[in-house]
C-alpha cells in the first residue's frame, strides 16, 4: 500500500513539474515572439523595444501616398502624430488615403520599414486603438 502511495506521489510530482516547465516554455516563446502594437503618438511618447518587430496602426494621411517603381511610401497618422512608412510590394485592395491601415515592420530613423501592410476587409473598419 505504502509503495503504491509513493509511486502515485512520484507520478503527481513528475506530471506537475513537467507541465509547469511546459507552461514556462510556452510563456517564454510568447514573450520572444510577440509584436507590439502602437499608434503614431505612442511611438513618439513611449520607449520602443529595440530591434523588435512592431505594428503601427492608424489612418493613411490624405495626399501622402507616393509610389516609385515597386516601392510605396505613405504616412500613417492618428491626427496627432504621424510616421512615414516604406513598403515594397502590393498593398491590399482596401488600402487608400483616409482609411485605416496596419503596418508591420521595423522602426529606423527614417520611419517604419514595413514587411506587411494590412487593411481590414471592411470599409467601416477603424483600428481599435483609434476608437478609444
Amino acid at each position, binding site marked *: 500500500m505504502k509503495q503504491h502511495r509513493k509511486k502515485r506521489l512520484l507520478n503527481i510530482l513528475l506530471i506537475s513539474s513537467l507541465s509547469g516547465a*511546459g507552461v514556462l516554455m*510556452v510563456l517564454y516563446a510568447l514573450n520572444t515572439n510577440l509584436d*507590439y*502594437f502602437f499608434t503614431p503618438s505612442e511611438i513618439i511618447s513611449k520607449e520602443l523595444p529595440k530591434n523588435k518587430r512592431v505594428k503601427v496602426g492608424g489612418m493613411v494621411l490624405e495626399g501622402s501616398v507616393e509610389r516609385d517603381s*515597386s516601392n510605396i511610401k505613405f504616412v500613417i497618422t492618428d491626427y496627432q502624430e504621424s510616421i512615414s512608412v516604406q513598403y515594397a510590394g502590393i*498593398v491590399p*485592395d482596401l488600402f487608400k488615403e483616409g482609411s485605416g491601415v496596419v503596418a508591420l515592420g521595423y522602426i529606423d530613423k527614417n520611419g517604419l520599414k514595413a514587411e506587411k501592410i494590412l487593411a481590414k476587409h471592411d470599409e467601416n473598419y477603424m483600428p481599435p486603438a483609434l476608437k478609444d
Partner: protein
Amino acid sequence: MLVEISHYLSILSTAVFLLTFTLVIILDSASRHSEILIRRSYSHGFVLFLISFLIYVYLAITDNFSVIYISQHSNSLLPTFYKVASIWSAHEGSMFLWILFLSLWGFAFNLSKDSETRIKNISIGIISLIIVGFQLFLLITSNPFETNLPYPPLNGADINPVLQDPGLVIHPPFLYLGYVGFVIPFSYGLAFLINSNESVNWEKKTKSWSVFAWVCLTIGICLGSWWAYYELGWGGYWFWDPVENVALMPWLAATAFVHSLSVASKSNTLRIWTLLLSIIVFSLSLFGAFIVRSGIIDSIHSFANDPQRGMYLLAFIGAILFLSLSLFSAKINLLTAQNELKSQSKESFISLNNIFFGVLIFSTMMGITYPLIYELAYNQKISVGAPFYNAIYAPITILASIILVISIESRWGRGFKEAKKYNQLYVSILISGLATLALRYFKSDISLIILASFFVGILIISRYLILISINLRTNKYTNIQSAIAHMGLGLLILSISANSIFSSERVFNMKPNETKDYMGVSLTFDELQLINNSNHDSIRAAFKVTDINGRISMLYPEKRKYFARGQITSETAIKITPKRDIYITLGDQLENGSWVVNLQLNYFIRYIWFSAILMAISGLIIVGKSSRARS
C-alpha cells in the same frame, strides 16, 4: 408576410424544443412510450425550424428586401446561389444556419436506433436544451427576421465582394457541420454519466458520430485554407489568424478525442480522460463561436462588435461548461475501476499523442488570449503571430511524428514482442535520411527545424508504405484507415516544409507587351481588357507564362469594381502544375502607366490540402466500416 411566418415558426420551434427538454425531465425516460413521445417532440421542433429556414432561403432568392438582414447582405444582381449563400455571409444568418445544423445532428441522432433508451432520451434532452439556448440567442440578440417596413429599400447592399466566391457557398456550412457535430458525443457522454451504468460502452456508440463530425471539420478548415489562398491574394495557406486558431483548437481536441475514443472503447482504459475530452471538444467549438461573434478579438473574420451578444454567449457557454464539469467531477468515481496502462502498448502511445495535442491546444489558447491579458496588465497592445506558433508547432509535431513511427506496430494491451519489427523502421530511417541529405546537398540554406520536418514527413510516409507492401505480400491485416490518415499527416508535414523551402515571390512593374524573367519563368504582359459583368466591372490583364520547358499558358488576373458598394477587389490567377503553382496578382497602376504585378511560385501547396483530404477519407472509411458492422 412570409418573413413573419418564418419568424413565428422559429419561435414555435424553440417552444417545442423546450417542451422536449421538459418531457425528458418529467417522464420516466427508460420506458418505450416516453421514448416515442420524446422522439416525436424533437422531430417536430426540428421540422418547424427547418421550414422556417427554408422560407428564409426563399425570401433571399426572391429578393425580399423588406427583411433588413437580406437587404443588407444580398442584391438583386447576384446570381441565385450567392443569394442563398448571402444568408451565411454575416452574423445573424450564419447563426441561423449554425443552429439549424446543431438541430440537424440531433435529428439524425434522434432517428437512430439505440438499445440504451434512457441514455438516448437524456441526450436528446441535453441537445434540446442547448438548441433552446442558442435559439433564444438568435431571437433576442441577433434577430434575422427584423423588417424595415413600410419603406423597404429598392435594392440590397450586396455581399461583401471579397465573399462573392464559390468558397463562401461551401466553406462555412462544412465548418459549422463539424463544429456542432460534437454535440452528439458531448451530450451522450453526459447522459452516460447521469445514467450511472459504467458497463455501457458509450465510446463505441458515439464513435461514428464523432469521426463524421471530425471529417466535416477537417474539410471545413481545408476549404477555408484553400479559399484564403486564392481569394486574399497573399499566396499563403494559413495565417495564424485568431479565427483560424479557434477552428484549429477544436480540430486538435477532436483528433485527440477520436484517438482516445478507440482506446476507451476497446480496452477500458483512458475512459475518464475520453469523457473529459468530449466536454473539451464541444466547449472549444462553442468558444470559437464566442470569439468570432463577440468581436472581442480583432480579426479579418470577426463580425461586428456587439457586447450584448458577447455577454450572452459567454454566460451561456460558461453555464454549459460549469454544469458539465460539475457533473463530470460528481460522477468521476463511476469510471475509476480501470485497467492500468501497459508500457509500450498502443494505449500508452495514444496517451502520449493526447499529451502532445494538449500542449498544442494550450499554446494556441495562450496565443489567442495572451494579447487580451497583456493589454489588461501592461496597457500595451500586442499581437502574437506566426513566429510563436511555428516555435511551438514545429518541434512538437516532429516529436509526435517520431513517436508515431515507433508506435506503428504496437499492440493493444501489451508491449512490443519481436525486436525484428525494428528492421522496417531502420529501412525507413535510412530512406528519409538519404532524402534529407540529398535536399541539404542541393539547397544549403535550410534551417535545422525545416530539415527535421522534411525528414519526419518522409519517415512517416515511407514507414507506412513499407508496412502496407509487406502486409500485402504476407496477407496480413492492415489498418488501412490509420495508414491513410497518418500518411496524410506525413504528406502534410512534408509539403509544408517543402513549400517553405522552395516558394518565392517577386514584385514587378510591367507595361503591356513587356516581358520579365524570374526563376525559369518568363512572364509577358499581353494586354488589358475591360469587361462588364452583371454586378461588377473588371479590368482583366492577360499574361503569357512560359516555364522552363517552354510550355506556354495564359493567366488572367483581374481587378474588379463592384457597383453596390463601390469596393475594389483583386482576383488572382493561378497556373497549377504538379510541382508548383504560378500565382499572379495584379496591383495598382502607377503614374507612368505601368502596373504592379506580383508573381509567386508556390511549391507543393496542393499537397497540403490533399493531405487533409486523405485524413477525411480515412474518417469516412471508419464511419463506413462501423455502420456496416452495426447493420
